[in-house]
């Protein structure tokens, strides 16, 4: 039973972090209708920022959130404004040009990071990196628990923002029907730019929160892009609540898969669930929650 609960806790905590990674992607997916294949790479960039702040300036990663999130917001804005928005105006055979552009952007980000920081692994060791506390014999990683808390708070914030603010409503309008929204006077390009910035900012938060317990090298983005993509599908394209469910589901699936089937299959679990969802619940959890 202890094994079961430890697995459950590990899965949920990891899932919170995954949710944070997924929300940004799902937001972008919802508004732009594309998967952002540079998502993990943006996270990597935020992690390097955190690393630099910690290593050279001695700033605690949680404080760095105030730096990394705005910085990545700007990066996202720049990417959308100068590479993706212009593409919308160019007619080409395949709308997927935008997705490919994100691949190119991801490549550039990775190589720029390699250029500056080389391929060496780096990590940020804080006092709480290794800290754990126990509840009834189950170990909780302090850093992951904090990350989980942040993930919940940020998601709640996102939800409120999308429902209650004008900007949030505009974003939802563009997500539902960009053309109709523009006719109603919403500047769709601006909304897209802001959304990309927010997506990047959210994943930056995830990266900054992850770094104290993880490590970093330029190629770290790829696996997280893939995870974000699975979460997005699980949750349903464009659904923030779905992303939370998707993230936690992925975290749980990985943890239980690792414990009861074999760690061999940790990565495959996500994909298996992905296929099951595709088969039996096309549209993801969004279909169930209707949000």
């Amino acid at each position: 039973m202890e094994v079961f609960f430890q697995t459950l806790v590990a899965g949920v905590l990891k899932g919170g972090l995954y949710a944070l990674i997924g929300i940004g992607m799902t937001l972008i997916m919802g508004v732009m209708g594309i998967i952002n294949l540079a998502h993990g790479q943006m996270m990597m960039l935020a992690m390097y920022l955190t690393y630099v702040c910690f290593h050279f300036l001695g700033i605690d990663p949680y404080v760095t959130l105030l730096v990394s999130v705005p910085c990545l917001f700007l990066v996202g804005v720049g990417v959308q404004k100068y590479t993706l928005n212009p593409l919308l105006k160019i007619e080409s055979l395949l709308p997927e040009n935008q997705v490919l552009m994100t691949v190119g952007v991801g490549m550039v980000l990775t190589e720029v990071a390699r250029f500056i920081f080389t391929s060496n692994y780096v990590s940020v060791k804080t006092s709480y990196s290794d800290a754990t506390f126990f509840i009834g014999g189950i170990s909780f990683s302090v850093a992951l628990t904090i990350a989980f808390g942040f993930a919940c708070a940020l998601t709640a914030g996102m939800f409120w923002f999308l429902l209650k603010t004008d900007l949030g409503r505009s974003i939802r309008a563009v997500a539902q029907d960009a053309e109709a929204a523009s006719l109603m006077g919403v500047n769709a390009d601006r909304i897209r730019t802001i959304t990309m910035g927010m997506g990047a900012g959210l994943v930056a938060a995830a990266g900054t929160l992850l770094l104290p317990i993880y490590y970093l090298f330029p190629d770290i983005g790829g696996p997280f892009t893939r995870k974000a993509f699975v979460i997005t599908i699980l949750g349903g394209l464009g659904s923030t609540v779905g992303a939370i469910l998707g993230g936690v589901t992925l975290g749980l699936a990985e943890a239980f898969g690792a414990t009861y089937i074999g760690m061999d299959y940790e990565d495959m679990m996500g994909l298996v669930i992905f296929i099951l969802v595709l088969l039996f619940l096309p549209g993801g959890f969004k279909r169930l929650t209707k949000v």
Partner: protein
Amino acid sequence: MREHRIPLILLALLLVLPLVVTEPYFQHLMILVLLWVTIGTGWNLLAGYTGQVSFGAAAFFGVGAYTAGLLSHHLGLSAWWGMALGGAVAVLIAFPFGWIAFPLRGAYFALGSLALGEVMRQVATSWESLTEGMVGILIMQTFISKLPYYYIALALAVGSILLVQAVTRSKLGYYFVSIREDQDAAASIGINTTKYKMISLCMHAFLTGTAGALYMNYMGFIDPHVVFSLHDISIMAILVAIVGGVGTLYGPAVGALIMVALQEVFRSAGFGALQALTDAMGGGFMTVVTKYVSQAHVLAFGILVVVVIMNLPNGVVGDWARIKRAFRRG
């Protein structure tokens, strides 16, 4: 006959090329180009003509390569049997996948194909008893000379282009393009969209799988990360087609030439030159520069991708008129 003149001249040139250019290095690069012509053309059929963008070329490529490799590894057959069977096995994978993914509209096919490649990679990595996992599969090459590989690759590349040409001039091609242009309209004129998307996917899988089998025969070594790579196979296949021109017959061929050549130029000549400069100037500052620039060739490649997509959305062949104009003005 006039429309065939240029392709025929090109073909004749390609047939004698390895007899003139005897450097194995260039022959090797040409084999890679031809391999990518096949893969790019296959992808173009599915995405460029049928409008179903796939991020899963690696799944079929890897399955083809593993078919060849496993036949030789477990059954002791020649890996050349893989050339006959690799494509067929790839089709077997494509079928259930298409059956799941095609009824869904929107981004699901693209996303599903991305997942398919990942699933195949995971399976090949974990199923050690069958695939040897990450240890990989190794066979001996049949030929020492590159010529046989060159001509086989050439035959495959030409075959794939002929196939696409034949398809585009038939009912199949009209149906594919109709589906790309508008699925509802296609259904309304009596086209079974799922069936024809499936046919297109199977052709794509067949060509890609056969190319994978050739890769196994030629390279002599595969492991899951090499042949099921999202970046190096699936995305490269897309780039080849996009750079050359999606939905054009010769686009992928032009794209393959450009991409393989550029990759090699960036990789080798770039820092070959800088190394020389370093030697000439005697280290110090230039050593540092060389160190950084040697890391930058992938960066240069990434920037190239961005620039091409921005400026040539329809590829070199698709935007040829624009390129010509630009050069005349410039």
